């Protein structure tokens, strides 16, 4: 098993890791010949899951990877450790990332080259301890299968949704997220004493399945375009997603699969998080948040 690469865009990698910082303590890094994936599973059955991918050529150059398992490597790591290591790589002249062993423990090693004020070369080593997953463990990690969603809609500005949802959370531990095909979305919480419904309008619907960028297999709506589709999820999970605030507040697609889940797609552009519509910003990856419907 070998992995070694030059890091050309450590800032982008740092921001992805910062986004997931609040979700959990640990995450899985899946490295393949084409992409780098970060996977966070908070609770296999009822919790939020995050699956992300970034094209390796948006982050690295001189990328080398080899393993008996189809040239794929799965590493479990503590998010905070990787975050701190990447922070110290910001602004460096030259950064290398490789998988190696230190004192018998596998680590992801960042070798950061800087130049001091006097022109001397400074080399900083940041080691992130990792656990290498076995093939059996790797096979067990699969992206959730999600049926075609009934509605896709662009989220309103995340800041607004987050602060409103935070104030609604005191009124219930579950939230009903609904949207229709006419640019309207709602959040609802309720308890014995109070019910609150917040309406967002003027949103953009997408008429195709954005995750694969193909027309949806089932384009014929079974309801009128004004009718709402609803997924009831744990407020805690919904807030966790909203609090990933290093993600751009725009360009997030919300997909509702009634009685099944909420899926949010965030597109990553190479220069920032401008998403598909930003000029000069190629989409090089995405973050996909899966929030299962709350089991009654």
């Amino acid at each position, binding site marked *: 098993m070998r992995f070694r690469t030059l890091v050309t865009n450590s800032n982008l990698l740092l921001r992805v890791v910062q986004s997931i910082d609040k979700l959990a303590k640990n995450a899985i890094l899946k490295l393949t010949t084409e992409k780098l994936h970060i996977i966070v599973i908070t609770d296999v059955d009822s919790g939020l899951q995050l699956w992300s991918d970034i094209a390796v050529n948006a982050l690295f150059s001189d990328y080398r990877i080899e393993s008996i398992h189809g040239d794929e490597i799965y590493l479990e790591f503590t998010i905070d450790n990787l975050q701190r290591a990447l922070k110290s790589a910001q602004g460096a002249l030259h950064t290398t990332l490789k998988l190696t062993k230190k004192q018998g423990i596998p680590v992801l090693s960042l070798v950061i080259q800087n130049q001091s004020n006097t022109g001397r070369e400074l080399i900083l080593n940041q080691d992130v301890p990792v656990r290498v997953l076995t093939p059996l463990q790797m096979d067990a990690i699969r992206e959730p299968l999600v049926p075609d969603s009934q509605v896709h809609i662009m989220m309103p500005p995340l800041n607004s949704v987050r602060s409103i949802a935070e104030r609604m959370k005191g*009124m219930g531990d579950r939230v009903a997220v609904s949207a229709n095909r006419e640019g309207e979305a709602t959040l609802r919480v309720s308890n014995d004493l*109070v019910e609150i419904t917040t309406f967002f309008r003027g949103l953009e619907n997408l008429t195709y399945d954005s995750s694969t960028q193909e027309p949806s297999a089932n384009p014929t709506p079974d309801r009128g375009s004004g009718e709402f589709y609803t997924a009831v999820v744990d407020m805690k999970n919904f807030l966790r997603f909203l609090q990933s605030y290093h993600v751009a507040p725009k360009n997030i697609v919300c997909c509702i699969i009634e009685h099944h889940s909420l899926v949010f797609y965030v597109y990553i552009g190479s220069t920032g998080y401008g998403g598909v519509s930003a000029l000069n910003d190629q989409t090089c990856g995405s973050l996909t948040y899966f929030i299962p419907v709350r089991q009654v």
Partner: protein
Amino acid sequence: MVITNRLGATATAAAARPTEMLFTARLNNIRPLVNMLRTINFRPRASCAINSGGVVFTVEEAQSIVAQAYLRTDLFAEFNYNEQLAKEYNGEQIESESESERDAVEDATHVSLPLDNLIECLTLFYGPSGNISNSSSVGAHGGAQSTSGMISSGNPMGLRGATTAHLAFNGLGSDFELMLEERGIISVCRLATFVPEAPVDLDFAQFPVIQQLIIRSEWLRDAFNELDPTSEAVGIAISSTAPYFSITTVGENGSTEMTYSKDERVLDSFFCSEEQENRYKLGLILKCKYALALSDKTKIRVNQRGFLSFQFMIPTDADVSFVNFLYAPLVHADELG
């Protein structure tokens, strides 16, 4: 309750049919209302009395403290109270009450509702929790807000206070409805209502006022901040000889006494026909701290039975609004023999 998502169906009550509802009102800015409600939010529930003069929210505790926030109609951009409907609604109420209770029923619609939740709904667009602005130096009431762990600086939404609100109520048995709007985002809130409990009437007016003064609230705030929290009671003494007005506590750490001279710069409209010192439960007295913090001036009155009234004059857009706190004394001076 039919739950629908369409804006039209759920929001019509609040916005579209003012003349058919018992009560509707509109506010262009919710902040004054929120502040007024926060002053009396020491219990989760409040009674609400609505008539053509405005709305009064009342909170009481332990039969020893009654706090009321008066919201006159001019505090609202629009105010509609349908007296005809009210008569029909209250008429039903009167049927079921005894003779003595009938006298207590004023010409108003009474309902009890969850005050904590009402304030939480009104502040939905206030921005990230933990960023509640508060002009008080003595801090905001707990229980008025649920705070999340996320404290962020600044206000990325930039929305606070520009929220407009529509209120609506159609008599007991229906929800109290609130529709808030800011920058195109609309929230519709429905609050459960309850049959109001018999009002606790400490009946201040029953006995003549023997002491009265108006004091600038900042002086009183200073005094409150000095009070010894380990003391059970606080003594308030007003006299026509020096010291004219004093506040004392006796606690584990000793006693404190604040006195005020009759100087016009400090005390205004001073009146004292009978000297008396009365004691009140400190914990209850301190519940008026937020009202005190918002007010410019406080009128203090004591009646012959030692009941104490604080009337806080709070500047709002529409002139001055009033919040009253009424306290029953711990032991009346007379009874000490």
